[in-house]
C-alpha cells in the first residue's frame, strides 16, 4: 500500500511540475531596512520597490524614461503635466490616481517624516521651503487636476525632471492605505500596496522575501515570471556562490574577487557590466576632527595608488581607478562628461605626501590622533581597510582604527558623524551628472562628511536652475573641480560587476539606474 501511495504521490507531483509556476530564486546581500518608498535610501529597497511599485515612468536599460503609470506627458521650463492611464490599478483593484502621487511626494518633503531623500524633490516648486519648515506641505507644486491628470510646477527650470519620475521617492503611495497602517507603512508584506508588476506576498524579517506576479498590473500580460523568491539573505560571497553551485539560486548579482577562480573552475559563464557606482574615501568635516585639516587630506590623497589598489585589492577586472566624483560613463553635453571636462587628480607621490603630513602635524599641535576608518562588514571591506591601514602607517606614520559595522549601523554612524574617513559609495539615481554633483552640497543629507563650500553650493544651485545643458554641465564641472581641489573626497574606484546566472534564466536586465537587476521582463525555461 505504501508503495502504491508513493507512486501516486510521484505521479501527482510530476503532473503538477508540468504546469509549474515560473519561479526565480535569488539571494540578496542584506534585507531592506523598510519598504516605505518615501524613506527608502538603499539598493536593496530600490530593487524590491522597483518590482512592486511603478512610478509615472519606468527607467529603460540606459536610464531613458519609458511610459509607466503616465501614458504621456508634456514638459517645459515651467513645469510638467502627466496624463495617467485609466487602467493602472493597485493590487486591491482600486485605480491609481494622480492624488496618490501628490500624497507620496508631500510625504517625502514633510519635515515630520524626515526622509533622507527629500532633496530629490527639490525641483518641484516649494519642496525645499517645505522641508525647511518655511511653507506648508499643501503648497507643494504638484496638484491632481483630476484623477488622471497630474500637474507639476517647477521651482526653477529642470532639465532632468523626467528622469527623476521613475525614482523610488517619486513612487505613488495611496493615502487611505497609508493612514490605515498607523505609521507602519512598509514595515511588513501586509503593510504594502503594489501597483507594479509584482506584489510582496511574504517577508520573513532577516530570512526571506517572496514576490508574486500582480494580476492587477495594467501591463500584466508582458510579465512572464510568476514568482521571485528570495530565500536567502547573506552578504557572504562564499555562501552565495555555494547556493548557486547547488542550484538553490538562479543568479548571483555580484561575484567577489575570490569567487572568480572558482567560477572559472566550475565553468560558469560570467558576464560583466558597469553598475555606475563610484566609491571614495569621504572625510569628516565636523568640528574637532583631524580630517578638517587640508594638509592631512592632501597627504592621504598623495600616498594612495589606486591602480595598485584596484588590481591587488578590488581584483575585479574592468574596475576603473577613481578619478572624480562623476564617473566615466555619465553623459555631458554631447559626449561623456569626463571627456568634455577632464580633471586629473595628482598622481601618487610619497615624498610630497610626507611633506604634507608634516605640515598637518604642526598645524594639529604636534601629533595626529589615530583616525577612525568606518567601513562595512564584508570580506572586501576588511581587506581594503587593512591595505590602507598599512599604507598610512608605513608612509605617513598615521594610525588607522578600523570600525567594521553592519549596513544599518554604518549608515547610522555615517549620519551621526562618528568617523574620520568612511569608505563610501554612490550609485546613480537618474541619468544626469547632477545625481553625483549634488551629493556634496550643504543641504544634501547624504553629504555625510558635512563638507561645506559656498562656491560649490552656488554653482550647483546655478546648474539646478537652468534648462541649458551647456550651462548646467559647465557649472557642475566647475563645482566638481572646487570639491576635488579641496580634497573633500578621494575617489577610489568605479565599480564593474561580474555576475553569473542560470542558463535557463533569460531577459534579466542589469542597469545603472532603477531596480537592478530588473526582472520585470525576465523569464525562466
Amino acid at each position, binding site marked *: 500500500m505504501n508503495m502504491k501511495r508513493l507512486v501516486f504521490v510521484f505521479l501527482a507531483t510530476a503532473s503538477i511540475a508540468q504546469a509549474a509556476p515560473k519561479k526565480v530564486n535569488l539571494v540578496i546581500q542584506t534585507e531592506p531596512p523598510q519598504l516605505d518608498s518615501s524613506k527608502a535610501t538603499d539598493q536593496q529597497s530600490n530593487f524590491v520597490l522597483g518590482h512592486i511599485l511603478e512610478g509615472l515612468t519606468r527607467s529603460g536599460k540606459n536610464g531613458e524614461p519609458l511610459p509607466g503609470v503616465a501614458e504621456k506627458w508634456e514638459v517645459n521650463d515651467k513645469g510638467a503635466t502627466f496624463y495617467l492611464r485609466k487602467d493602472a490599478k493597485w493590487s486591491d483593484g482600486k485605480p491609481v490616481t494622480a492624488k496618490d502621487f501628490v500624497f507620496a511626494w508631500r510625504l517625502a518633503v514633510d519635515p515630520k517624516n524626515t526622509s533622507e531623500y527629500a532633496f530629490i524633490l527639490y525641483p518641484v516648486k516649494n519642496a525645499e521651503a517645505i522641508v525647511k519648515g518655511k511653507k506648508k506641505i499643501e503648497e507643494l507644486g504638484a496638484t491632481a487636476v483630476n484623477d488622471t491628470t497630474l500637474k507639476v510646477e517647477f521651482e526653477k527650470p529642470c532639465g532632468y525632471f523626467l528622469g527623476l519620475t521613475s525614482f523610488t521617492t517619486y513612487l505613488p503611495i495611496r493615502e487611505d492605505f497609508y493612514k490605515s497602517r498607523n505609521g507602519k507603512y512598509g514595515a511588513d508584506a501586509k503593510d504594502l500596496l503594489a501597483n507594479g508588476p509584482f506584489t510582496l506576498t511574504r517577508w520573513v524579517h532577516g530570512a526571506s522575501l517572496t514576490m508574486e506576479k500582480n494580476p492587477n498590473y495594467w501591463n500584466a500580460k508582458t510579465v512572464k515570471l510568476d514568482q521571485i523568491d528570495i530565500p536567502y539573505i547573506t552578504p557572504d560571497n562564499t555562501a552565495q556562490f555555494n547556493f548557486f553551485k547547488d542550484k538553490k539560486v538562479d543568479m548571483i548579482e555580484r561575484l567577489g574577487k*575570490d569567487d572568480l577562480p572558482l567560477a572559472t573552475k566550475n565553468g560558469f*559563464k*560570467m558576464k560583466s557590466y558597469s553598475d555606475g557606482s563610484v566609491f571614495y574615501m569621504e572625510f569628516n568635516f565636523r568640528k574637532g576632527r583631524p580630517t578638517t585639516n587640508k594638509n592631512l587630506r592632501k597627504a592621504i590623497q598623495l600616498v594612495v595608488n589606486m591602480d595598485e589598489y584596484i*588590481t591587488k585589492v578590488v581584483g575585479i*577586472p574592468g574596475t576603473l581607478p577613481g578619478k572624480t566624483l562623476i564617473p566615466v560613463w555619465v553623459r555631458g553635453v554631447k559626449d561623456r562628461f569626463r571627456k568634455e571636462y577632464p580633471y586629473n587628480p595628482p598622481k601618487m607621490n610619497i615624498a610630497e605626501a610626507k611633506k604634507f603630513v608634516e605640515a598637518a602635524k604642526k598645524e594639529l599641535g604636534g601629533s595626529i590622533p589615530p583616525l*577612525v576608518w568606518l567601513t562595512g562588514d564584508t*570580506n572586501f571591506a576588511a581587506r581594503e581597510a*587593512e591595505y590602507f591601514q598599512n599604507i598610512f*602607517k608605513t608612509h605617513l606614520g598615521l594610525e588607522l582604527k578600523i*570600525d567594521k559595522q553592519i549596513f544599518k549601523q554604518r549608515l547610522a554612524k555615517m549620519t551621526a558623524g562618528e568617523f574620520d574617513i568612511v569608505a563610501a559609495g554612490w550609485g546613480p539615481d537618474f541619468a544626469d551628472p547632477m545625481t553625483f554633483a549634488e551629493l556634496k552640497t550643504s543641504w544634501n543629507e547624504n553629504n555625510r562628511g558635512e563638507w561645506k563650500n559656498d562656491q560649490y553650493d552656488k554653482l550647483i544651485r546655478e546648474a539646478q536652475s537652468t534648462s541649458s545643458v551647456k550651462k548646467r554641465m559647465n557649472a557642475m564641472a566647475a563645482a566638481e573641480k572646487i570639491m576635488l581641489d579641496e580634497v573633500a573626497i578621494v575617489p577610489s574606484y568605479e565599480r564593474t560587476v561580474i555576475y553569473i546566472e542560470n542558463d535557463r534564466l533569460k531577459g534579466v536586465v542589469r542597469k545603472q539606474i532603477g531596480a537592478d537587476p530588473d526582472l520585470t521582463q525576465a523569464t525562466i525555461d
Partner: protein
Amino acid sequence: MMDIKTAFPLDFSPVKKTTEFTLSSRPSLSYWQDAWIRLKKNKQALASLFIVVGLVVFTLIGPYVWRVDPSNQELSRISEAPSLGRSVLVLPEEVAYEEVVVAGHEESPTADGASLDATAEIQIMGVPSIQGVRFKWTPVKGAAGYSIYRTQTEPKDRESLGVPLSSIEGGNRVSFDDGFDLQAGRYFYAVVAKNGEESSKFKVISVDLKAGISLSDAQSISPDAKIGEMLKMGARPLGTDYLGRDMLARLIFGARVSLFIGFFAPLLYVILGILIGGISGYFGGKIDDWLMRITDFVLALPFLLFMILFKIAFGAGPGDDGIFPMLIALIVLSWTGAARLTRGQILQLRESEFVQASRLLGAKSLYLIFRHLLPNTLGVILVYLTFAVPSAIFTEAFLSFIGMGVAPPTPSWGSMCNDGIKSFLIHPHEFIFPALFISITVLAFNLLGDGLRDALDPKMRSQS
C-alpha cells in the same frame, strides 16, 4: 654489685664515626618527584609537554629567529602557497601603455552581432610578464566593439571563456592591456567581436607567464639586482595571506596573543578562585554562605554579553584592541570553578586528623593554611589550571574570530582563521595553518592536563 675497678681513658674517647649502614628502604621520594615519575610513564602527556614547551619557545624565540615583519604587505605575493623561496625574474619597469587604434575601420550598425567573425590573428605586444600582458588583434569587419576574456584552462566552447576582463566600445580599438592580478602560469585570452550582442565565434591566444618582479621592488630586496637576472625571494614556509603577509610571522605574533591570554587569564582567575574558595572553606558559616551565593550569581552571568559590556566600560572604541577587556572579563567571570574546587578541598582537609593535631599544638590560621591546607590542594588546582589554559586560548580564538578580540593589523590565531575561511576553497593554507595551531595547542594542553591529573592525584586516576 659490680665494682668498677679500673677505668681506662680509652673508654671515654669517642667511637670512630662510621658511614656504613645497610639500606633497607627505597629512596624517599617527594610528592613532586613521584608525580614526575608517573608523568614520564604517560607517553601522550609527555609528548604534549614537549609540544607546550615547543610552543612557548616558538612564541618567545620565534621573532628573533624568523625575522620577517608580520605586517609587511608584499602585494606581488598575494595568497602565495607555502614555499622555501622561489626564484623570480627581475623585470624592467612598466612602460606606458598605448592603445592601438586602427584607421579606416567601418562599423556596420546593421550587422548581426551574433554572427560576426572571429578576429583573424592576435599578436602579443612586448614581453608578457605578471606585470602586464598586452596584445592586439586584427579588426573584425562590422564590429562595434570587442569583449576580452581570460581563463587558465584551455577554453573548449563559447561558454568557458572565463572571466570577462573588458568590454571595448569601438571596432577600431584593437588592443588590450591586462594587469589584473596575474600570477605565474599559463593564461588563455579570448577576443570576441560584438555589435550590441556578442559574437558566437572567438579567437584564443595562450600566454605563459614566469614569476617576475619589477626592478624597483627587486632593488628593495637586494640593492644590486639587475634586469633579466633571477632573484631568489624570501622563503614563505607557510605561504602568504590575502595581502601578501608572511603566514609564519603572523602565526608567531598571533601566538603571543593566544598564549598571553591562555596563561595569564587562568593564572589570575585561579588565584582569585583559590582566595575566595579558601576563605569560604576555611572559615565556613555565614562567610561561606555569602561567598557561595556570590559564586552562584557570577556563574549565571553570560560571558559574551559581559565581554561586550566590559569593552564599552573600558572605553575601548571601535578599532581598539579588545585584549585587555577580554582578560578582565575572563578573570571576573571565570574564577568560580576554581573557588568551588578549593572550597571543597579545604572543607575536607580542615577536619582531617593532621590538621586537628596541628591545631591542638597551637597552630594559627595562617600557618595552617599555608603549611597544611594549600599544599594539599595544590595538585588538584594545578590540574584545574592545565584544563583552564586551553579553554582560555579557545575563548580568545573564538572572540577574535567573531571580531571581538584583537584589532587589525595585530594578528591572532582566531582572527587569522576568520580571514582565511573566506578563501578556504582557493587558498586553503590561509585557514588550515592557524586552525591547526589552535587545534594542536588546545589538544596538547588537554592531554597534558589529563596526564597531570593522573600523576598528581592518583585517587582520581582515569580508567585507562
